[in-house]
């Protein structure tokens, strides 16, 4: 099956002096896909995003962006937009002036560049004429996203776009990114917010100390991963516990580290064993009212990764 790639990276390495920031990184981002980038601090996420934006060039390997090899800094095409290390905004300008200045820089007429539209998309219409100086972190993030949208990108690269966003702001951002992806724009987004990535991304790449430790669809993480803890809320907790004890591959977790709830059972299992438990419950007439991982597969993988890294020290 053919899939169009917005980003194709093979064996990318990047060093800063003696520090190896990226070590043989492979990355494929399909057109119209939202691709998450996860990893502990210092894993090389921002360096990789910087390469995608053309801020630097890799020391080794091959990087193609929107079908063109990138061989020198600042040589990525006009179809790439985004920000790393926070959006670049000028506090003495209003939100509208920031966008207008950027539009004019790109050679567009500020009146017809779609400034009002992108401000509306990120939910900043009401503060369009306020100086960016007074903006909260979340508002700055949204304005940074609006600035990126203004260029109508085919590849959008965002570093921690959800930082400081309230639920309403997060909804705006999610809606915008989902719509962009549906229209064919590829989005690479790094975040420490696992809930965001799970809500947005179809695929993720997990980096650790400059290397890719996982890359693929989110659901593959659950199947590839180790056992997870699940919360099971049923109509009959006693029966549920008995059935869990009787099911192979299921262990009841006594010390959950969470607030005790008599109706909730926490079990540790892999997905097939969990499926079997649910079947047993249903056959026994026990209603399943809630079934959810205590921590998401992505977060579990991330935590495992972090713990492994700490153990390795």
């Amino acid at each position: 099956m053919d899939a169009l790639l917005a980003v194709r990276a093979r064996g990318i390495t990047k060093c800063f002096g003696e520090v190896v920031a990226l070590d043989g990184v492979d990355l494929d981002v399909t057109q119209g896909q939202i691709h998450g980038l996860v990893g502990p601090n210092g894993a090389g996420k921002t360096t990789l995003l910087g390469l995608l934006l053309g801020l630097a060039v890799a020391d080794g390997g091959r990087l193609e962006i929107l079908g063109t090899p990138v061989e020198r800094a600042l040589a990525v095409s006009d179809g790439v937009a985004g920000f790393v290390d926070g959006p670049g905004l000028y506090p003495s300008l209003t939100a509208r002036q920031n966008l207008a200045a950027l539009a004019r820089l790109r050679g567009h007429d500020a009146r017809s560049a779609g400034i009002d539209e992108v401000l509306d998309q990120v939910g900043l219409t009401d503060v369009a004429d306020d100086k960016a100086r007074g903006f909260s972190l979340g508002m700055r993030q949204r304005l940074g996203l609006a600035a990126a949208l203004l260029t109508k990108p085919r590849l959008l690269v965002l570093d921690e776009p959800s930082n400081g966003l309230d639920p309403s702001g997060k909804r705006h951002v999610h809606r915008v990114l989902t719509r962009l992806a549906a229209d064919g724009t590829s989005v690479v987004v790094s975040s420490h917010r696992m809930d965001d990535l799970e809500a947005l991304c179809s695929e993720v790449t997990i980096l650790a100390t400059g290397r890719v430790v996982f890359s693929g669809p989110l659901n593959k993480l659950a199947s590839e991963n180790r056992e997870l803890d699940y919360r099971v809320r049923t109509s009959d907790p006693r029966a549920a516990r008995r059935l869990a004890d009787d099911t192979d591959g299921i262990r009841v977790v006594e010390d959950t580290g969470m607030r005790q709830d008599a109706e909730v059972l926490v079990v540790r299992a892999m997905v097939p064993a969990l499926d079997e438990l649910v079947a047993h419950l249903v056959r026994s007439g026990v209603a399943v009212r809630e079934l959810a991982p205590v921590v998401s597969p992505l977060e579990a993988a991330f935590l495992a990764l972090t713990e492994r890294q700490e153990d390795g020290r």
Partner: protein
Amino acid sequence: MTTAIAEDSVAVVRRVPLSRGYRFELVKLVAQWRIRLLVLACWIAPALFVAGVSRQSTLPSDTLFGRWMHATGWAGPLVMLGFAGTWALPLLTSVVAGDVFAAEDRLGTWRHLLVAVRSPRRIFVAKSLASLTVILLLVAGLVCSSVLGGLASVGNQPLVGLDGHLLTPGDAAGRVLLAWLCALAPTLALAAIGLLGSVALGRSPMGLLLPPLVALGMQVAQMLPLPVAVRLALPGYAFISWNGLFTSPAQLGPLLIGVAVSLVWAVVATALAYLLFLRRDFTNLAYDGAGRRALTLGLLPLAALTAVTVAVVAVATPSMGSGIKQDKVQRSVATAFAHLYRLQTRQLHRPAVTEAKLRTTAACTKSDGQGAQEGAGNDWRCVVTWHLPDVAVAGTAVYQLDVASDGRFVADGDGPKEVNGYFLVRTPTGDAPNPLWQFDGNVELLDTTSKG
């Protein structure tokens, strides 16, 4: 199997044209409240200052041309130029050029700017041109405002030059504007040093302080008893050498050397800033100044430039002494006295007399003739002698001179009272300031101007 996107098989990489980058930088600069405030201050404050001081009974006579602020509107802009060269221009260049790169470090906007513009070269040129534009706007404000303030409050009268000769209002206007134009050269040098500091030192406040510190250093150097070649080789000398425009003939040698040195500094410091900027790694989040590279690509080349300039000036002009010699002091005092004597004659409605007929001479000694008869100091004493037509006895007057290292001097009349011993003269229309009581003059440090 996967394939890279084939659509638009050759991706478009468009660099932003310089004109748009320039406009973007200008918008950012002008949007800053402190820049707006400076523009406003430069266009309003000089007029108020000149108008206010010109109406006071006490004039800033310790400032060059300050003592003539009652007499002509053209003295105000020159007082302002003296002040600007010492304080205003170093500070203005510091706030504008000294911060234009560092501001992006502070705001964390470099990556945004690079992704948008795609060319560090164009960013550098756009920022430099935008800074230059704002600095020119500020300087234009200082000139226009002080000229308007002076003309509105005192009027378009002739100006007394540094050798006492009268410049017609038109001539005064031309020379005032030319003096400000010459002062642009050291201003550009300071602006370039500001750019260099801003690039080299990142968000460190030292970058912002660099132009005033360099200007202060140059002013201190000008107060020291340095050889003339060293004095002329410093980029700030043109802030002083414009004085030579107000003598007759104009002392163009030091002025042209000062302007040329300033422009060389402006070009070299800008080029160094450019090289440092292009070598910067914008992916390094922890960047906080160019560190050792600032030394090798910033400070050392400028130190080398100073050494080369001193050597070139020393070879091109025989100027390793103080430049303040007895014969030059005598000539300057005699010339100024003769011109001012004619002015006093006119005030008193006496018969006109020419400088040639006055045959003025001055005999000056330093430290009562003890030691070397040259160099700066407030221990110069001059006895001026002049002749009047049909009067057998020559007139004499005594002056105490305070000669500064840069050649400027203040001559303080020591009598006789009727000539130069009192600050007022009694004219038929009432008391008037006595032009011979105290006057400013200057000794040309180089031996380039024809002796007149």
